[in-house]
């Protein structure tokens, strides 16, 4: 290499740097109240949420700057940013992340017209966040090995030696931990601890993610998986219904079949931001709820909006004894899982 090509590389580097500084200059405007823009941190899949956001901008004229990320990363980010966050709204994949932000005092109280849109069991007790969609826990099973009736109606039966080495779940996943928390709340600490201890002894297959666990069953690598219902529908939409070796069974009334929610909250410093309020209100409007039911196969939470086809009614699954706010005691659940070597 000669000097001139080195010079040109350095020149290119310099230009790149100048460009970057230039780019950064146009992205640092602070979000003011009701400026026609809302900054949303969205902990959900871009492909699923982006069309809905376009729809919102079309209908209201409010621009949305979205930062997509995973819910855990974004909530860690929000906790780190604290009151200096540029975000107005947080759209979360689960209630736990919203609870953590609420506990840290980072969320504003939502007005009644938003929180009243969905039944009380799907919002936070202190009105700092509102549920947007529902997702049920199910057992996914290998339909080449089992018929639906051979699959237990309760996860409590999975500790039977018959299922040794055949059941998989992601112990680090928030929805799985919510289910264990529900087990503690509904059946008591003793039963829950016994279940975790027996499951740990029953050689479970420990995974990282719901989707990958489902794939294992679909590939014939695993017999049963404890996951959320919509993963099956998403995979079926990609691979075609006929290619779904894996099937799912709903568990009405069982702690292993609870309904958890995705939700949204407004950050404290945007409590009076009209654009932020309009955005969250839109999420619990009829058109957004319909969008979720038909595109992401989740349960709409606003009464009167029809559930996706082929799903049991939400009322059948919802456990009336369980308050979602009770699922906040995640730390105890994790300690329990850690005690038996699952975490």
């Amino acid at each position, binding site marked *: 290499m000669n000097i001139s090509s080195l010079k040109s590389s350095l020149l290119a580097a310099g230009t790149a740097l100048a460009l970057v500084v230039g780019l950064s200059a146009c992205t640092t405007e602070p979000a003011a109240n009701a400026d026609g823009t809302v900054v949303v941190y969205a902990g959900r899949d871009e492909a699923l949420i982006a069309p809905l956001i376009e729809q919102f901008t079309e209908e209201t004229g409010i621009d949305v700057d979205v930062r997509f990320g995973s819910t855990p*990363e974004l909530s*860690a*980010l929000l906790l780190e940013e604290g009151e200096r966050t540029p975000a107005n709204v947080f759209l979360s994949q689960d209630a736990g992340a919203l609870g953590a932000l609420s506990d840290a005092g980072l969320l504003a109280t939502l007005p009644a017209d938003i929180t009243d849109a969905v039944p009380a069991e799907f919002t936070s007790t202190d009105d700092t966040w509102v549920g947007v969609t529902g997702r049920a826990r199910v057992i996914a099973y290998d339909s080449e090995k089992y018929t639906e009736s051979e699959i237990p109606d309760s996860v409590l039966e999975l500790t039977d030696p018959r299922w040794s080495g055949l059941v998989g779940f992601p112990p*680090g996943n928030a929805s799985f931990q919510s289910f264990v928390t529900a087990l503690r709340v509904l059946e008591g600490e003793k039963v829950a601890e016994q279940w975790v201890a027996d499951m740990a002894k029953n050689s479970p297959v420990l995974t990282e993610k719901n989707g990958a666990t489902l794939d294992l069953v679909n*590939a014939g690598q695993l017999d049963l998986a404890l996951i959320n219902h919509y993963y099956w529908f998403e995979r079926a939409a*990609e691979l075609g219904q006929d290619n779904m070796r894996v099937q799912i069974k709903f568990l009405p009334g069982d702690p292993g079949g609870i309904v958890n929610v995705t939700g949204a909250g407004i950050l404290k410093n945007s409590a009076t931001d009209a654009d932020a309020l309009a955005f969250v209100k839109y999420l619990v409007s009829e058109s957004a709820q319909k969008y979720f039911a038909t595109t992401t196969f989740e349960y709409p939470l606003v009464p009167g909006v029809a559930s996706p086809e082929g799903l049991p009614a939400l009322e059948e699954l919802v456990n009336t004894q369980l308050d979602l706010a009770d699922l906040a005691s995640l730390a105890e659940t994790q300690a329990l899982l850690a005690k038996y070597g699952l975490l």
Partner: protein
Amino acid sequence: MSTLVNVVRPPLWLTVAGSLASLTTLIPLIYLSQRAFGGGWESVVELLNRPRMALLLWNTLLLGVAVTATAIVLGLVSAYFLARVYLPARRWWLVMATIPLAVPSYLAAYGLLAAFPTTQGFWGSWLVLVAVTTPYVTLPVTAALRAGTTDFDDLSRTLGAPGWKALLPGTWHQIRGATLAGGLLVFLYTIADFGGVALFRFPVLTTAIQQAYGASYDRNLAALLSMILVALALVTVFFERRARGRLFTSKTSTRGRSRLNPLTGKNIWLGIVLLIAPVVGAVIPVGVMLVRMFDVNALQEVRWENLASATVNTVVLSFAGATIGLLLALPIGILAGRYRSKIVSAIESLGYLPLGLPGIVVGLALVFFALSTVPVLYQTAFLLACAYGLLFMPKALGTIRQSVRAIPTSLVDVSSSLGYSTRQRLVSVYLPLTRTSFLVAWLLIGVTAMKELPATLMLRPTGMNTLATELWAKTDVASYGAAAPYALMLVIIAAIPTLLLVRSETTQEVKS
């Protein structure tokens, strides 16, 4: 022909510049210690007593050692093939050897899993990490072999040692530094990697860190686990320094001859070994995605303007990051290559730390740092480029150090006896001899930064996309097929600088 490096003290400006550069690596550490000990010592003890803690630590070490050992073997064989065998289309062989650098480990893991669904646990993680890290050994060792000589092999051979036995004493001392430096990068990459292990369900420290953020929003726990990784990284850097032993630098500028062997049926297997990493790391994952893309059910339309903007952003951001990283690495690398003292050791060791940390931790540390010191820069492209520079600066250290060390001391002595000023010496002695490696270092940071994900997700300006964020978004949804054009583009734009690099090397060879 060798002599101990300068025991002379480095000039003050260089020490100051090196110290400042290495102190930037303390940003994540300060953040971590603040979080880690926020829960008090009780929580530290409790964490260390968890039944799973020993398993996580053991798995992390096992994987780190196994991947490093394998990558060194593959890298040495590949480097020998590239440097000592006369190859048709040599440039393309080198591009093949470099390509895995551009592939994010989660992508390679996905590809392997899609092609062979039974791959699980340790072996899957091992294979994927070996594939994406082998270039860290191949590239510096190839460079060292090219710069070296086969004269010693010939000498051993005339003394009666046959074939590869002659290779060992003749060549090993010429490539030992490069091998160790590459091995260190591989080990640190492996222990800090999350994407390559997560899909195979192999529990290590990084998966536990991710879970601590993901399920409990427990930043204290995550920070504590990260501190264990930092400690592991420090110990490794220490041992690598010990293994490197006394620093020798060549005194004279004798450039030995390097003999090339013809490509024959006997050594073609070396080329097959070279292909393992690119096939596992790039061909399989990109191939699987392309198959999915053309699959009837998953046929997605490509949004070209989106692909174009992601490509431009990726190139600009990663090479701005590479420039910052090179500026940070230069003073440290020059100090480490030329001088030896406790301060120099400390500066160099600190410089390696960011590599031992998962991206999410460095990302959060920079969020914390930027908001509390320069909030105007928060979520700007400039800060993201700084993050790349800080994260990947260590990848340039070894290359810079080795090239600076290779400057013959006699040349320096001659130039000073001729009355050259420091500036003249810099321009007419140092720079001509080191610029190729500086360029290599720059490209190495740039190509690695292209695929960075966790820090990019947190620090990019809201709404700005890169190839890595698009890939992440598309592999997270069920539609893997839609990710194919982005994966392909990532591999292509990483190949271009590699091609440039190879051209610069061939020109140099012709000249000498």
